[in-house]
């Protein structure tokens, strides 16, 4: 297992390197440059040229890339033009906020999705199944930014139960209950779509499993139905659900971009959006690199868990 993980991690290096090349050149190709973004209407060719020189952007593109890569190998991610602070500080701070949000959402959607899927499979075509299916359908179809605004309107503006935005209270707070209060709305919003997807797949997988011979055997030998479902059926169904959760983890990370903007969550998604619009090359590079590395790790983790559950894959 250890050599398998090591091999996968090694294989990820060229992927990440390739990604940085692509991002670097896409950023260089989109029109506009950091100097124009900083100067705005004051961007005369003369001012732009001077600022680009100050920022070290007057060198050839390939040279710029290798300077960046060289610094990276020394652990130096560079300095953000727009924020005037080290890229690594900003990226790590932002990414941990995203991880908290996406992690909570992932736990939420896994639990709820599995539960809903199992229940609706066991009660196939019953009322519970129909209601769960309907709710899941609505959940999958609602644009998450819209749902987010709706939740803010109801729970923050009308009922004033929960804060509308941010990660921590502006004064006081700073403890776990404070964080949880701020997490509820964005994490739920973020979890909705993935919950739907997981629920639907769990349902299908469960229905498939419930038709298998070993389930009939289990029932025939007089096991209580609860045990049949929980011990035999769910475990078998999980094998095909886990990779989906792994993929959903990626989507949840991606979806965080909108949600972070709506809820003003200080995460890496909203940071990247802003960094792109200000042409903050180094910040985009640093952010993408960290997110991509996380993506690779999630997929690897999903595969490892799957191998542990399903002996056939070992």
């Amino acid at each position: 297992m250890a050599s398998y993980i090591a091999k996968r991690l090694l294989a990820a290096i060229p992927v990440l390197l390739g990604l940085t090349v692509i991002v670097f050149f896409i950023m260089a190709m989109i029109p506009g440059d950091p100097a124009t973004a900083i100067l705005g209407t004051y961007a005369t060719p003369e001012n732009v040229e001077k600022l680009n020189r100050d920022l070290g952007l007057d060198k050839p593109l390939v040279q710029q890339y290798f300077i960046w890569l060289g610094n990276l190998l020394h652990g130096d991610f560079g300095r953000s033009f727009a924020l005037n602070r080290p890229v690594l500080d900003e990226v790590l701070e932002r990414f941990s906020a995203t991880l908290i949000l996406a992690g909570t959402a992932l736990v939420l959607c896994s639990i709820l999705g599995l539960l809903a899927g199992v229940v609706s499979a066991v009660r196939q075509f019953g009322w519970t199944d129909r209601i769960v299916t309907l709710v899941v359908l609505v959940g999958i179809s609602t644009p998450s930014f819209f749902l987010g605004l709706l939740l803010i309107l109801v729970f923050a503006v009308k009922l004033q139960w929960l804060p509308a935005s941010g990660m921590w209270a502006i004064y006081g707070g700073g403890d776990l209950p404070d964080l949880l209060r701020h997490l509820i709305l964005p994490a739920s919003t973020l979890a909705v779509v993935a919950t739907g997807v997981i629920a639907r797949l769990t349902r299908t997988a469960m229905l498939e499993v419930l038709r298998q011979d070993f389930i009939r055997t289990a029932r025939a030998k007089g096991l209580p139905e609860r045990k049949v479902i929980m011990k035999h059926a769910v475990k078998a169904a999980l094998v095909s659900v886990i990779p989906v959760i792994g993929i959903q983890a990626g989507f949840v990370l991606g979806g965080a971009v909108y949600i972070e903007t709506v809820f003003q969550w200080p995460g890496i998604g909203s940071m990247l959006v802003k960094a792109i619009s200000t042409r903050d090359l180094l910040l985009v590079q640093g952010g993408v690199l960290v997110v991509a590395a996380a993506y690779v790790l999630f997929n690897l983790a999903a595969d490892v868990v799957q191998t542990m559950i399903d002996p056939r894959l070992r």
Partner: protein
Amino acid sequence: MKRILAAAVAALSLMFSQAAFSQTPPNVLVVGQIAEPKSMDPATVTAVNDFRILMNVYDGLVRYKDGTLEVEPSLAESWTISDDGTVYTFKLRDGVKFHDGTDFNAEAVKFNFDRILDENHPFHDTGPFPLSFYFSAVEDVNVVDPLTIEFRLDAPYAPFLSNLAYTPGLMVSPAAVEAQGKDFGRNPSGTGAFKFAEWEANSKVVVVRNEEYWDGAPPLEAVIYRPITDANTRIAEMLSGGLDIMVEVPPDSLAQFRDNDSYKVVEQAGPHLWFLILNLKEGPFADKKVRQAANYALNKKALVENILQGTAQVAAGPTPPAFAWAYNDALEPYPYDPEKAKALLAEAGYDGEEVTFYVTDGGSGMLDPVAMGTAIQADLEAIGMNVNVETYEWNTFLGKVNPGLEGKADMAEMAWMTNDPDTLPFLALRSEAWPDKGGFNSGYYSNPKVDELLNNARKSTDQAERAKLYQEMQTIVQEDAPWVFVANWKQNAVTKSSVEDFKLQPSFFLMLQKVSKPQ
């Protein structure tokens, strides 16, 4: 199971226990900003959003008088200008200290300007300083005595005083720059009414009362600036009680605050112009009649009332009325007269040639550019012009427009916000300001009389004389119509009704020195 339930109930009750968590405490003002500041080093920023914080943490040698764009003493008590307008000598206020405890004096002033202007200064690398060209006329800065500083300019430059009141002219503590280097922008120190306390990335910037402020300690204990980029979220946060002041309220939402006694809506027109650059070098707009036709064709009243929903007023000429001393009151906006526009087109022999119109999707001061572009296209098509809209993302747009419209487009949206009546016409209307000469005259307007007026206005240090020159320039430019003059932005803000003595300034700075919030 029961134990889990009990724990859950306990956790929930803890979370909801502070029912009033969204209420802000007395004497602490929470301001909803549109974005996180880039830096708190005033020499490195260009966005109004950042100025809103910095104006309360720093002072300049001079500042804008309350409610105007005219300068008055601040860190300098008085000044003299040499007869030829090239030497400015400032007498500095005695006993002023930076927040870090060091003295404000002539050496500190020299450090500030040398840092920005001298590439060999040891702390020039704390830049880049994008607005340093505000002081490009400065040749040297000399310390005469500890409380007297002298600026030598390479030529008379009338906007100099006004530029000193703007952000690049704010005084930072040399000791703090020396200690912090590039990180000064995150650990700022000035002389202002509020001292920097804390900056939590993408969450808040906190400044606290400077008890020793030379102009009297402010009533507020602290101000907390929160960046909330999404306008809808900002409104929700205002409605749920998490903000005391919110700036740049979207036009759609102003009414809901106006109709509610718990809030006050504040508005202020500023030195901003929203206009269309016309390409005079080629195509239909090379003919003055067609340019005037375009000015008559736009229903500007409908644009500001329906699309901008009253957040702007109709512009008459190239200078915004906020520059009260330099504005030509005799100027009337081009009236909405499609018949006259059609007649002018016919006179000019316009044959329905296609007109390319650059529109942007956002950008500083651009208000609602896509909707505006669509409405303008419709107005022009109503008089028989064939308009083809091309929309670009802001940075791309600037990259296309600033180098000049020749060979690309016939007209383009643009907006400018400036601090002196000199800036926009000088940089965007003179023959010497064509893009190939480093200016912003992207439509290639050229009128020797306007050039002369603007050059003279810049040299004169007598405000009354400058005013006369600017007023004459406005009349000529309006008649020549190198632009379509559309709107002047009215900045707005919403405050809780408990916030007292809050005003918006024509400079668009957010001055909080006198504001209070007793409950």
